[in-house]
């Protein structure tokens, strides 16, 4: 890693060249947070510098993530309060019978593993897209109002007496979509279209407003609060097979869109002026990116509830590990998200037996220190 650079060097563009001489990235590392002082004078001239992370390091981190994800999945299938040896679990997976173990593997452990995989990668990628789009480190997938919209819709569903979890899911998706649409349209008004700051402010405002409405509904109806507080902590034990199958197409579309825009996000990261150089494509890219966030974050919320930390932290972790190229941040985030969720879920089953710690609780408790360690140890790659 680089030594700490001088303040002026922090405003720069990297045309990273790996030690192997291969062109690794064309990315930006722009100082400061997009801001009220966006109009203040700031040199925008690209200046070459050494690449943050070489090609080799990127491959090593990505391969390690794949291996770690495999371990996390295996643990998720084997660990649980019902005693079953790894061999017995394997035979239940391969040739399911009628015993309790088979029921548990197929109806408890496999669904929650699948939930963790899908929700984790969706949140990781959605967070990366959102941070790239808004160039704001505080922008998680929630900034489009997705979680807030979903929460209000679910609370409404509960208050209206929709009792099946399956029913809640579709309310959640509709709420997420409505909120994202509202934020995006509002953030696009005026000159310059959907600029980062307008999007972020519109998102924050809508989140606060909708969040208040959610609070009002729960405080006026005690029974709703009692149910809602369990929805509000993220959990992998909610969605069954029929749900994960139903949201599959949304996820795939979201991932494809995210990959499509990842190169352009590198350009947007160079700042307002460079972003404008994309010309008419800029609007299309912003819309595609927003749609991808909606699909991914909306689906993750449907599957696992409003988990805030993963979408926020995972892209930062990926950036800390392999540098600022979104074409690599996306896949690595897609791997790191489920690793974080699945390991947290496994820990949650095991830590407080016979009780359960919901995955949303453990991700924060365990992921927080890891995140802090990385933030302190590694040079911060600014957006």
């Amino acid at each position, binding site marked *: 890693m680089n030594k700490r650079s001088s*303040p*002026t060097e922090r405003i720069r563009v990297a045309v990273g060249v790996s030690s192997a001489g291969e062109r690794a990235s064309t990315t930006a590392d722009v100082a400061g947070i997009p801001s*009220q002082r966006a109009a203040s004078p700031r040199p925008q001239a690209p200046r070459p510098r050494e690449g943050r992370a070489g090609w080799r390091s990127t491959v090593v981190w990505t391969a390690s993530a794949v291996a770690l994800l495999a371990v996390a999945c295996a643990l998720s299938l084997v660990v649980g309060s019902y005693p079953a040896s790894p061999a017995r679990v394997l035979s239940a997976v391969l040739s399911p019978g009628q015993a309790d173990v088979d029921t548990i593997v197929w109806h408890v452990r496999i669904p929650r593993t699948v939930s963790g995989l899908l929700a984790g990668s969706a949140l990781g990628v959605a967070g990366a897209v959102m941070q790239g789009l808004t160039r704001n480190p505080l922008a998680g997938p929630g900034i489009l109002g997705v979680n807030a919209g979903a929460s209000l819709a679910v609370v409404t569903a509960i208050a209206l007496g929709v009792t099946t979890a399956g029913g809640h899911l579709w309310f959640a998706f509709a709420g997420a979509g409505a909120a994202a649409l509202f934020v995006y349209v509002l953030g696009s008004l005026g000159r310059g279209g959907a600029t980062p700051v307008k999007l972020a402010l519109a998102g924050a405002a809508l989140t606060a407003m909708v969040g*208040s409405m959610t609070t*009002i509904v729960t*405080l006026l109806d005690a029974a709703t609060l009692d149910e809602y507080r369990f929805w509000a902590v993220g959990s992998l034990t909610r969605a069954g097979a029929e749900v994960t199958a139903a949201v599959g197409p949304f996820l795939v579309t979201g991932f494809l869109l995210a990959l499509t825009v990842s190169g352009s996000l590198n350009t947007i990261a160079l700042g307002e002026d460079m972003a404008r150089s994309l010309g008419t494509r800029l609007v299309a890219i912003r819309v595609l990116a927003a749609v991808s966030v909606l699909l991914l974050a909306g689906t993750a919320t449907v599957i696992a509830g409003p988990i805030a930390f993963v979408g*926020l932290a995972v892209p930062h972790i990926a950036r800390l590990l392999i540098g600022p190229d979104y074409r690599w941040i996306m896949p690595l985030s897609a791997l790191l998200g489920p690793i974080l969720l699945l390991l947290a879920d496994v820990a949650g089953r095991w830590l407080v037996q016979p009780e359960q710690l919901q995955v949303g609780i453990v991700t*924060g408790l365990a992921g927080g*220190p890891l995140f802090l360690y990385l933030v302190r140890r590694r040079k911060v790659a600014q957006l």
Partner: protein
Amino acid sequence: MTAKDTVAVRVARGAVVFRLQRRSALLTSMLWLCALTLAVAALGLGEFDLRLADTLRVLGGGGTLIEYDVVVRDRLPRVVTGLGVGAAFAVSGAILQRIAANPLVSPDVIGVNAGASFGALLVMTVAGGAGASLVLGALAGALLTSAAIVLIALNRGLNGYRLVLVGIGIAAMLSSAISYLLVRADYHQVLSAASWLTGSLANRGTLHVTIVLVALAVAVPVLLVLGRHLRILELGDDLARTLSGGTTRVRLALITTAVVLAAMATAAAGPIGFIALVAPQITRRLLAGRPVTLGPAAAAGALLVTGADLVARLLFAPTELPVGAVTGVLGAPVLLYLLARANRIGHTG
């Protein structure tokens, strides 16, 4: 409304400063006038029936024991606490947004909300305490958390970006712990805790009034001295360092003031959401996008909280909502409206 000012900026700097100051002073006094009017109205309105004449008689020292209890011991402290915490949150948010140059930054970014909530919830659900112990728990939680965040982020200078990231990490850990306490709590405790966590002015007393007034009394003189540094800091790290030297020390002092203000306000009224974020933004836009001085923001905060609390008490009467449930519903549309109307924000905001 902005065109004339903008032109003037380029033409004659002195005149503009004067005009902006006049404009800002006018706005500040108007906002305070509204806030105080609402506050007086709040003393007479509520579930307990009182005519205006009765209210005045009680304030003058007359009235029955129960009327005195309702107006002077119940409504008065809540109204004063509301005015105070509104101003405190708003000033705190204005300082932090300008230091970080990020409109999404508010005291909860440096852990005030999460720390106070965790402290309060620990007192409530584990120790079974209320009253002074609850206030102390919240205050200690907020201050310790903020200190931890600043110390962890303090790595070869205080980088705003690193501060924000560390804040995210710590807040995530604490909100997980909060969720844990909430999920394991019993149903009746959850109701009470949910109300505190929303931010509430119910059942406030001398203790809460004292805390928030002390906070303001300490912060205002400090800010009168340090306020001018805010404008310098806004020019960016490098320029600021050249102009004033020791930016880290000034930053730390300003951040400390902001944190203490928000922490004491949170201890008094719980983490009332959105005020710190929206009050500076609203005044900024009412003042045509010029950087806000802290006065108008404080007035806007006081007005928002007082108005929100009145709505919270009357809207679903006889059921009372905690004020924090309403601030978002009231404040967000104002911000959204201003956002939608201001077509220049693509550049200035």
